[in-house]
Structures are given as C-alpha cells and as structure tokens.
C-alpha cells in the first residue's frame, strides 16, 4: 500500500435534482492498473459512478478521488487536463455527428493539439484493430450500430489514457466482436498499465474474463468480489 489508491469513492451520495437517489454511501477503491467490472440491474447506478469520475456530474455528498485529485472540487480550468487522461465509452455513444470515422477517432488527439501525421499513425493502428479501415472517411451516420460502438471504444483508447471508463461497450456487438473488444481492453490494462472500469450486462463476457466484480443494486454496493 503506498498511501492513496488511484481511484477512490469516499462515502459518496448522488441524488439527482429530480429527487432520484442514484447512489447511497458508496465506498470504493481501485488500484492503478486494475480491471473492474461494474455490474447490476437497470437503474442501479453504474453510469452514475462513471459520470462522477468524469465530472459530468458532481456527488451530492462525499468525495471522489482520482490520481491524487479530488475530482468533485477540481476547478473548471483543470477539467480538460483531467479528461485527457481518461477515455470514455458512453452508453449512448455520443459520436460527433457530421464528422467522419477518422475525425471522430482522433478527436482526443486533436484536442491535445497533436499534429496530423501523428494522428494518422495512431489512427491507422486502431482502425486496423477495429476492422474499420474501409470506413475511415465515412460519416459516422453511415455506420451500423455495432460499428459505431467499436468506433467509440477506439476513440476511448487511442490516446492510451490512464483510466478507461467503458459503459456497456458491447451492447450492440455480436459475441465474437464483443470478446475481441474486451480482450483488447484487458491487454491495454495488462500491458499499458491503464485502469479500466467497465459496466456490462453481457454474461458471456463475464464468464470469459477474470477480474474484479463490483455489484451495485439500487445505488448501493452489494458485493465486491474477484474472479481468477
């Protein structure tokens, strides 16, 4: 133990402005380089946990610590730099409309001000893994549901972030693609040292992969186990 964990929730509550209690007294710590599955039925609060980590929402009480920073107290000016160390696969995808596959994919790099040649190099690699080379210059509107989802995962990892938040990243993928996708994330975790938090309902994936499992139900952590 070196004092503080990479990611920590300390007595976190989240009550949305419409009165919905999404999280109740969440205490959770995750070491750097860990792979965590976030499980639980619909409405359990999985996406809310993700949103607190990316400061899309702030907790109603308690603190969220990430890499030594208290996320919920971070100044607005620092947020972009926090988020550049993150890759997020949104449950509702959130691709930038009217842009091509390539433009969406390299957006996290563009934001950092990388040069086009560098972006091209990174993109070529990821597009190959995702099997989307042919669609490089297609508008994202022209992709199928599964292709969009793969693109989202690609966008979340292209800049090799320290933390990957993947919210239901396999919902529109067939069994084989889903397996490959999660394998890729595992590899990133093992070899790249990234921490991955992944919310999923995919039981086949859960059977196939080891790792820590945190079960949420109605906003509370009801089980926290590890499977080899």
């Amino acid at each position: 133990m070196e004092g503080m964990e990479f990611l920590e929730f300390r007595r976190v509550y989240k009550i949305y402005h419409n009165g919905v209690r999404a999280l109740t007294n969440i205490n959770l710590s995750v070491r750097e380089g860990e792979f965590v599955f976030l499980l639980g039925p619909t409405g359990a609060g999985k996406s809310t946990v993700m949103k607190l980590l990316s400061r899309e929402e702030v907790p109603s009480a308690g603190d969220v610590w990430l890499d030594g920073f208290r996320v919920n107290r971070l100044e607005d000016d620092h947020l972009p730099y926090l988020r550049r160390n993150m890759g997020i696969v949104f449950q509702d995808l959130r691709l930038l409309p009217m842009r091509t596959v390539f433009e969406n994919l390299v957006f996290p790099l563009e934001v950092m001000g990388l040069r086009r040649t560098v972006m091209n190099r990174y993109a070529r690699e990821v597009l190959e893994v995702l099997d989307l080379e042919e669609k490089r210059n297609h508008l994202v509107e022209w992709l199928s549901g599964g292709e969009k989802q793969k693109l989202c995962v690609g966008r979340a990892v292209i800049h090799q972030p320290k933390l990957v938040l993947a919210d239901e990243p396999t919902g529109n993928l067939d069994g084989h693609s889903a397996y490959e996708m999660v394998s890729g994330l595992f590899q990133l975790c093992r070899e790249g040292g990234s921490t991955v938090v992944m919310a999923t309902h995919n039981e086949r994936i859960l059977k196939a992969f080891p790792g820590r499992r945190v079960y949420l139900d109605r906003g509370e952590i009801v089980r926290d186990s590890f499977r080899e």
Partner: protein
Amino acid sequence: MFVREVFRRFRRNPQLFLMGILSIFFTQLIVNVFIVGYLELDKLGTFRGDAFSVRAYFPDDVTTGQAEEVAERLRGYPEVAEVTIVSREQARLKFLEYFDLREEDLPPEENPFPLSVEAASPRVEDVPSLAERLRETGSFDEVLYGGRNVELFLRFYQMLLSTGGVILLGVFVFSLVVITNVIRISMQSREHEIQVCGLMGATERFIRRPYLYEGFLQGIFAGLAAFVVTYLVADFTLEFLHAAFPFFPWVETEDILVPTLVVNTAMGGFVGFLGSFVASNAVLRGKRRQ
C-alpha cells in the same frame, strides 16, 4: 484548418450562417444610410454657399469704396469663406430675375435696392454666429440670412447630429444582439457536440475558436455585401438624382466608396467577432454552471 471548419458549418446549416450574415448586412446598410446622409450634409454645408450666406445691407449713404474696405476687413474673419459686394444695379437685376418681371415693370426713375455684401460661410453651423458678428460691426443697416431655409436646415442638422449618435449606437447594439443570438443558436444546436468535446478534454478556447472565426467571417462577408449593395443602389439613385435635380449638390458615388468599404468591413468584422465572443461566453458559462 479553422477555415475548413467554418466552411463545414456553412455546409451543415447554410440557413443559420446566412442569417448571421443577413443580420449584420442589414444593420450595415443602415449605417451606410447614415454615412451617405452625413456625406451629403457635409457637402451641402460646404458648397451651398449661396443659400447659407449672410447678406448685410449698407446704409444708403455708403459708397462703393467704403463698402470695399468693409468687405476687405470681413475677409479676415475665420468663419468667412467668401465676400462678394452686390451693387445696387446687380440687386435690381437679381430681383427682376427672381420674380420673372420685365424691365418695364419696375419704375425706371429710381433704384430702391441698397448696396450689400454677401458673406458666405464654409459651414452652415457658422451662419448664425457670422451674422451676429456682422451686426456687431455696426457698419450695416440690416443683416439677414436665409431665414427659414437656413433655420430649418440648421435645426434638422442639429437634430441629426444629436440623434444620429444615439441611432447609430442603437443600430450597433441591435446588430450585436442579433449576431449574438445567431451564434448562440448555432452553438445551442450543437450543444450536445460541445458537451462531448468538453468530455474529450477540449478546452473552452478550443471549443470557442471556430465560432469566433465564424462570427468574424460572417461579419466581413456581411460588410462586403452591404458595401456592394450600397454602391449599386447609391450609383443608381445618385445618377437619378443628379439627372432629376441637377442644381442640387448631390454627393458623388466615388465619395462614398472608401468610407463605406472601410466602415462596413471593420464594423462588420468587429460586431461579428464580438457577438461570437459574447455568445460563446454565455453558452459555455451556462454549460459550466449545469
């Protein structure tokens, strides 16, 4: 890179882009009306020496020589551009001409018109003070100036000068409000996108930049369009006016060109940029507060 981005915005929603241009364009047209009006007034004030001159009548016993002396003195005054002595005979002929009378309509025995000087002022505003100074010299029986015409014109001129600033400010604010709203709408229609950009680690500067370019370019385009339209309309109208009322000192089209071009592009670009800035600030602040 950013020009490409602006071009993409245009392609994606030409309506919105053109709305922005239209709003600035429209206000620039109003500005141009003022510019032309101002130039016209300026020309009127400078050149209509005859209408805006003061006429001072000498007493009956003054000789032409004495009149010359007084006229010479007047030429030293700063508000005097030109001094002409009108002899009694000249006055009589002018009178006949004005009333379209024949020589024999007037009694030939005696000329009732007194000797006078006409002192023209370079600027219409100076006419009343010039008249006052002439009165103060004591050399004249009576000092008259255009009366109603000049007075009307003067009041109008003063009204325009005092309200013109207010109206121009109003126009400026109006176009700023419109362009701000257009950019705001443009941003709101991409609110989702802006939010996603933020979540990908984009700074506000990064998000805002293309909108600033967009507003600035819209302003420049609008200014150019306003300039071209003004030029065409002015050219046509002035040609008509020159033909219809040739005696009136209308401004020339060439006099209009440079001032409108400069004002339109500068003001257009400035208003567009400022509008984008205000709008992006408002939207981003709103987003942050959420």
